[in-house]
């Protein structure tokens, strides 16, 4: 009989007790101490050379974890940006635009390999300059940047496959502005496809994180990349505006906030520039009652606390099915308590420093608004370092859709938890945002994953995982999260003209 063949039902065991050690034993410090070989004065990289800014002005780059100065960074003015564009145009006309793809590819392979050679230096420099934990820059940012060059290197001689039925041609000179959350990786995302396609580039790193971008100029010199193919100009908003607005830019690509993205779009209205925008997000990370909860909690933590939450696709809105809300919140709080917040250079650190004072103020202001509007705030009891910019991992529960913490991009370690009852309600709430960059779905049911993926208005949907990236996988947004894709074949198409 079927009933008899079933295994005897186990008597319900008492729920396993949790061992929470708290501060009982301290971790020994495990600092990364290698020399990142940083210059104390970082000049602009134009026409294959490091050159002083024409106006002779420099600004400070500080370590956000210690508030100490790391280096003087050259401030590029319109004159420098113009010089960079002229160099890029010359390199496009005389060398890069007409070079056979296979040869261009070999330069990109070289860059990938050299970046792998210098991976440790770059990881340390990235952490010192940006505040992200060394384990992330070491295991994610730098290897992924090298992987992007490697992947796109292979495309350079295969461009006839990029757009079936059409032949593709490079655009010319491309202007690019990148953000401070993944400084080197965003540079790789921007440069690799542009160069593979045969364009030349003028790129501006974010003002708080210029060090690895300018250090990357040394890699380009080692690779013997022809002068002018890549020009790196540092500076703040004005420099960025000059890069985006230069008449020689055939295409501009921007990654940053939706607010700035809109300003740039207006500024180039009426020109023939091609534009791609990778902007902000307010991703829904949706947990259904059949999800494997422990895995989901790990995914929620990774989704919002990876890189201190300075991630445009961060899973900042947690949508939990009502029946499991308490269980999820309990597990989540317990998990957050053991997150290690502090010295980014320590190999055990989970959350490092907030990138800048300005960003810390923005996060603080939004969290205060959440409390004011009636959401319930939970913060990790961790101790924060006395110096530097740090913020405790935070979770808002009882959040309603109208709260600012549920609508605005916080770009920090702050999670807003909302609940839903049905699949349709989850879809409705997830899509009720101006953004559409990414989303997460946690459920055991494959057909539901595909249903959610079909209905969610987001450029990337992670199912039973979160914050996964790959050079082969197109990334980019719907709606006010921007347009265009980075990675994969789709990402390349954005850097060519089809004939």
């Amino acid at each position, binding site marked *: 009989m079927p009933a008899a063949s079933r295994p005897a039902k186990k008597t319900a065991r008492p729920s396993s007790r949790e061992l929470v050690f708290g501060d009982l034993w301290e971790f020994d410090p495990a600092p990364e101490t290698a020399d990142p070989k940083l210059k104390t004065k970082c000049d602009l990289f134009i026409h294959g050379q490091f050159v002083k800014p024409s106006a002779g002005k420099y600004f400070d780059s500080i370590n956000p974890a210690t508030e100490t100065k790391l280096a003087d960074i050259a401030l590029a003015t319109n004159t420098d940006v113009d010089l960079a564009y002229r160099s890029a145009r010359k390199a496009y006309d005389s060398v890069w635009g007409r070079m056979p793809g296979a040869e261009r590819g070999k330069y990109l392979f070289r860059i990938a390999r050299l970046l792998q050679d210098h991976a440790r230096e770059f990881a340390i420099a990235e952490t010192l300059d940006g505040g992200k934990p060394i384990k992330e820059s070491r295991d994610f940012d730098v290897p992924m940047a090298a992987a992007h060059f490697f*992947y796109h290197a292979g495309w350079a001689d295969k461009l006839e496959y990029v757009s079936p039925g059409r032949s593709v041609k490079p655009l010319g000179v491309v202007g690019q502005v990148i953000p401070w959350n993944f400084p080197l990786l965003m540079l790789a995302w921007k440069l690799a496809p542009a160069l593979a396609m045969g364009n030349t580039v003028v790129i501006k790193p974010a003002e708080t994180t210029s060090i690895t971008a300018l250090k990357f100029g040394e890699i380009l010199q080692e690779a013997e990349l022809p002068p002018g193919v890549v020009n790196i100009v540092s500076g703040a908003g004005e420099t960025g505006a000059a890069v985006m607005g230069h008449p020689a830019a055939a295409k501009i690509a921007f990654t940053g906030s939706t607010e700035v993205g809109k300003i740039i779009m207006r500024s180039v209205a009426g020109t023939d520039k091609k534009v791609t925008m990778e902007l902000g997000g307010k991703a829904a990370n949706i947990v259904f009652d059949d999800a494997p909860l422990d895995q989901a909690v790990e995914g929620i933590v990774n989704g919002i606390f990876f890189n201190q939450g300075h991630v445009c696709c961060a899973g900042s809105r947690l949508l939990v099915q009502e029946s499991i809300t308490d269980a999820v919140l309990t597990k989540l709080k317990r998990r957050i308590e053991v997150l290690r917040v502090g010295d980014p250079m320590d190999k055990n650190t989970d959350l490092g420093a907030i990138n800048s004072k300005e960003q810390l103020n923005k996060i603080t202001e939004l969290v205060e608004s959440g409390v004011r509007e009636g959401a319930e705030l939970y913060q990790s009891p961790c101790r924060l370092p006395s110096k530097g910019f740090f913020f405790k991992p935070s979770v808002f529960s009882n959040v309603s859709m109208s709260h600012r913490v549920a609508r605005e991009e916080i770009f920090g370690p702050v999670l807003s938890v909302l609940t839903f009852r049905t699949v349709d309600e989850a879809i409705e709430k997830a899509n009720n945002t101006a953004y559409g960059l990414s989303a997460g779905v946690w459920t055991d049911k494959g057909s539901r994953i595909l249903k959610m993926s079909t209905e969610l208005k987001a450029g990337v949907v992670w199912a039973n995982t979160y914050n996964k990236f790959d050079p082969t996988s197109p990334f980019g947004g719907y709606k006010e999260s921007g347009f265009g894709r980075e990675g994969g074949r789709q990402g390349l198409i954005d850097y060519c003209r089809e004939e």
Partner: protein
Amino acid sequence: MSRLPITKTPKCYVGGAFIRSESGRVAPLHDARGAFFANIPQCTRKDLRNAVEAAAKAGPGWAKRSAYNRGQILYRLAEMMEARSAELAEAIQIGGSTKADANHEVASSIERLIHYAGWTDKYEQLLGNVNPVASPHFNFTVTEPMGIIGVLTPEEAPLLALITLIAPAITCGNTVIALASESQPYPAIVLGEMLATSDLPGGVVNLLTGQRSELVPTFASHTHLRAISGVANADERKEIRLAAADSVKRVNLRKAEDPTDWPSPKLQGLSAIRELIEFKTTWHPIGA
């Protein structure tokens, strides 16, 4: 007094090791001027079967490597060859090529590997796809490697033809047993030494030297070889197709009687990979 040089004993690269033929047979190889160069192993049917066993062992691990990793390993092989390109060119010159031709053949071989190093993580994006079926199903087609590929190289272009035939097979996760040019086997011997230092797992590429007439029948009939690619004459093609039918083996053979322009870019690329993969389509319902 001039130093007496040490002569090298050529060995075949099989299963990640350097072997002599189990038969103990060798054949003398003479250079283009007729001077004795070395003794080349004369591999047998048994050596081929041993190689199939080695390839079968290495296959699953190689196919599971990430596309990125396979690309890096192919690139590494090219790095190894570039560093030892003079040695490869000398090996080709034994067969009578001029220095310039030999250098060109080596350079073309390295470029070809770089080309395939870039394919490992792209062919799937072009050969696989999502199919818009009319029912509420997510339907997608992906590629899988066939398994063990038998490669019969032509007599000419002893390095470039070998690379041209091996590279697409390992790009997409297959393992290979290749029979080197009978008259010019030495470049394959040298290539084996570079494969051994390239991060390519042992057994993924196995190179045999010996007499074609002895080995072709076993290549054709061995049921564990899932495909035969390369170059064959009319008699061999018929023989191979007849024997291949028994195990429904895929056969892609160029005609030995038609000249092949081995350096031509037309001989490389996506279509060469497509001949060495299987397609798998999966249906999955969509719905809450």
